[in-house]
Structures are given as C-alpha cells and as structure tokens.
C-alpha cells in the first residue's frame, strides 16, 4: 500500500472516529483523541530534539568549537534542578534570567505597539482639513478613516471605559453612558462569536472536503468502508453497553 493511500485511510478513520463523538462518547473517539495527543507530543519532542539539541547545540559545539554556547546550555540545565528538591533553588537563577530578559524585551515593545499606537489611532480629528474646502466632515461608514467612524470609536472607547469604572454609581447620565458601553461590548462579542462560528464551520468544511476526496476509488474508498465500520462498531458497542447493566442485575 502506498504511503498516500495509507495516509488517506488513517486520516479518514481518525476523522470518522472523532466525529462519532457527536452521536455519543465511545471508545473509538477515545482512541483517536489519545492518538492525537500522543502523536502531537511525540512529533514536538522529535522536532525539538533535532532542531535544538542536534542542530543548534551539539553540532556547533562539537563540529565548530563554539564553546560560548555552553553558557545558555548551562542556564537551561539549571531549570532541570526543579526535579531535585535539594538543588531546586538553583533553577531560580534560570527563571530570573528568563523573566528578566523576557520582560525587558516585551514591556517597551508592547507599550509602544498596543497602547501608544492604539491611543494614537483612537484620538483622531473629528473634522478634517481638505485642500481649499476648509473643514470637512466625511460621513462614509464604510471608510474606516471617516470622521463619522472616528466619532463612533471615540464614543465606544469612552463608554466602555466608563462601564468598567466602578468607583461611581452608574445612575442618571452615568447609566446612559454605561448602557452605551454595554451595547458596544455586545456588538464586539457578537462579531467575535460570528467569526468563531465561521472558523469552526471552516474546520468542518476542511474535514468533509477530505472525506469527499478520500471516497474516490483511487484510494480504495476509505470513506465508505470506514463509515460502515464506524457505524457497525457504534451499534455493537451500544448493544454491549445496554446488555451490561442487565447482566449485573
């Protein structure tokens, strides 16, 4: 059997086993689930070993004599002292190095990218200066840079920030602002949920596209045969489960 055909049978079988959970929890689903976890972990370990230990550590040190690499290797090895209670304190040096370096790299860049740039984009002019026309106001909702959208964003940001400001009771005019904030939040959650639904449906489309492709005779029709096998297995497992309590009685 060719590798492609074998792969098609494996992919089809595992897809159908996972889909069988939609009917009910069963051993076929558990088998596919455990295989997925095992293969993912195994693949990651092998790739990490090959890319890091062999290509980035062993070969440069042994073949090219880059002795300086022993310093990061030593820092890395300190982390493993967590497994030896008496020497566990040594791992703190490694963690301190990583946390310090990571924070130093991430904090300035994150502030620049996610706070300053976004504040700059939020505080946009509500009126524009256009050539000889003087001050203008663009109403185009479809243009993200229009003045109307700048006002909507300003109202949205202000009202949502006010909604999360709990030091003042949300009553009177404050209630109106907080309610406006809730409306903006709901729209954002709705958009996020809509995109999530689209993404999940795309995954389903991807699997069904593969199942259709693998129903071809050139692969030996794995979709058809494995679908029958899955259904028969589910029926047999269902019968065994229903007869088990009666045997106990």
């Amino acid at each position, binding site marked *: 059997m060719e590798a492609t055909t074998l792969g098609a049978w494996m992919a089809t079988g595992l897809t159908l086993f996972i889909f069988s959970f*939609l009917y009910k929890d069963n051993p076929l689903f558990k088998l596919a689930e455990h295989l997925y976890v095992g293969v993912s972990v195994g693949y990651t370990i092998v790739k*990490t070993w090959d890319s890091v230990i062999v290509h980035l550590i062993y070969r440069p040190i042994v073949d090219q004599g880059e002795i300086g690499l022993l310093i990061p290797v030593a820092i890395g090895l300190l982390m493993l002292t967590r497994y030896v209670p008496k020497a566990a304190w040594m791992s703190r040096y490694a963690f301190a190095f990583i946390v310090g370096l990571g924070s130093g790299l991430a904090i300035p860049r994150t502030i620049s*990218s996610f706070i300053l*740039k976004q504040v700059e984009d939020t505080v946009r002019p509500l009126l524009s200066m256009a050539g000889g026309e003087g001050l203008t106001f663009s109403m185009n909702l479809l243009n993200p840079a229009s003045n109307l959208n700048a006002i909507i964003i300003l109202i949205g940001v202000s009202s949502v920030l006010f909604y999360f400001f709990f030091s003042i009771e949300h009553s009177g005019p404050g209630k109106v602002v907080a309610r406006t904030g809730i409306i903006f939040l709901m729209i954002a959650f709705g958009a996020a949920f809509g995109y999530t*639904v689209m*993404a999940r449906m795309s995954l389903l*489309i*991807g699997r*069904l596209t593969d199942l259709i492709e693998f129903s071809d005779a050139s692969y030996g029709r794995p979709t058809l045969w494995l679908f029958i096998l899955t259904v028969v297995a589910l029926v047999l497992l269902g019968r065994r489960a229903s007869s088990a309590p009666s045997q106990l009685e």
Partner: protein
Amino acid sequence: MTFSERMLKIDRRIIFLVIGLCTLLPLLYPVGLPIKISPEVRSIYDYMEALPERSVFLLSIDFDPASKPELHPQAIALLRHAFRKNLRVVAMTLWVSGTGMADQLLTQVAQEMGKENGKDYVFLGWSPGGTAVIINMGQDLYTAFPSDYSGKATKGIPVLEGVQSLKDIAYAISLGAGNPGIEAWYVFGKDKYKFELGGGCTGVIAPGLYPLLRSGQINGLIGGLRGAAEYESLVGQKGRAVAGMDAQSATHFAIIVLVAMCNLFYFSLRHQQGQRQV
C-alpha cells in the same frame, strides 16, 4: 408538552445532522455563489503585485495542522502569487508542530510553479525562542537560522543574496493561528525593524486583529476561509477555499435560521407560561 417545549428540547444530534447536511450538500453540488473582495484582502494583493521582481518576500507559516483548513489555502494562494511574480520566497515557521506541514506545502507549490530550492525559495524551518527568533532575525538572520530545514548552511544560498536581516525584507506576511503570530511579528518585527507587514489568520482571532489593521500596523488582513477564497479569486486560481464558500454560506444560513427559531420558541413558551399564571 407544547410544540415550543418539544422544539426547545429537541435532540442536539438532529441539529448536528442539519449542519452536517448543510455543509456536505453544497460541497457535493456547488452553486458558485459570488465572492466579494474586501479592501483588507485586496491591499495585500495590491502590495504584492507592486513588488519588483526578485524582491524578498518572507512568509511565516505560524500554524499547525489543527488550523490547516483555514490557513493552508491562504498559504497556497499567497505562494502561487509570489512565485508568479517571481519574488524570492523565504519561508519559516514559529510553530514547531507545523514544521513538516509547512515544508510539504512550500515544496508542493514550488514544484507546481517550477521553482528551484535555494535559488527561488528557501525553507528555514523552525528555531526555538518564539518572539526572540524575530528579534534575532532583525539583528542577523544567519544567527537565527544558521542552516535551512534540510540542514544546508544559509550563508551563501543564492535566494538570500543581499539579505542580512529583516531590514532587507521587502514584504512579510505572517499566517498566524495564535501566539506567536501576527501580533508578535508586528511588536518584535515591524515596529522595530521597519518593514511592511501583512497578516493572514484564522476566523477566531480575526476580530482581535482589526484594530492593528485600522491603525496601519499591518497593511492587510486575510481572515479565515473567507479571506482565503477572496485571495484565490484575486490570484485567479480557485482552490479549496472557493469550493468551501457555498458550504460556508449554507451553514451560516442554517445557523441564523436555528437561532431565530430558538428565540421564537423561547418567547412563545414564555408567553404561554405568562398566560397560564394569569
């Protein structure tokens, strides 16, 4: 039990079946609904189209097989476009679990377009460190990737001629399914080393990336299977994404109908219960 109560307690497997059929039938019998190109996808296409021949295009394939249905068609369409434009393609991944898939994908499209490894494209593979790899590449690409995926030394590869760091990249696109992905490429890459950046992502993370698009931090965004279908249409080579659009529309319609029906039955039941209490 009233009709509304019966409908609200319907077996969830019937709903699964309806959604399954709404997905399967359009895949078997496509109708070819029109695909409208959004400005965020077109801006990526236009930027790629404006790049001079032999410009360096970096494609970071930051996803694994779990996100393949959405991001694989995007990657294929982008690579076809880049190869057709005769750009030098430098591909890599920040996700160790996606390494094999990324290599297979690049090799497949390169063979289809008649491109040569080392001369027209290179796959750098994966390097540990996540976001630190981007910083490292910004300083010296050859330190971050001393060898390519096949183990060949990166220094001296013709496709990387004149490329020392990220500053020498004409355009970079990250196809991200999470972190590290588009945001990391902006924060640690574009913001620091000043190259143009576009993004492609799964539908789940797309809404969170629109603020980056609006503020110009990324110049375009291909969102989910829909974005992939738009790019396939622009490139003129319709593939899996376009084929899936009918099914996507049908399932969305089915979900909208189901949500509307649920609300209808819920309010109808509440109205009936209110009348009983009176």
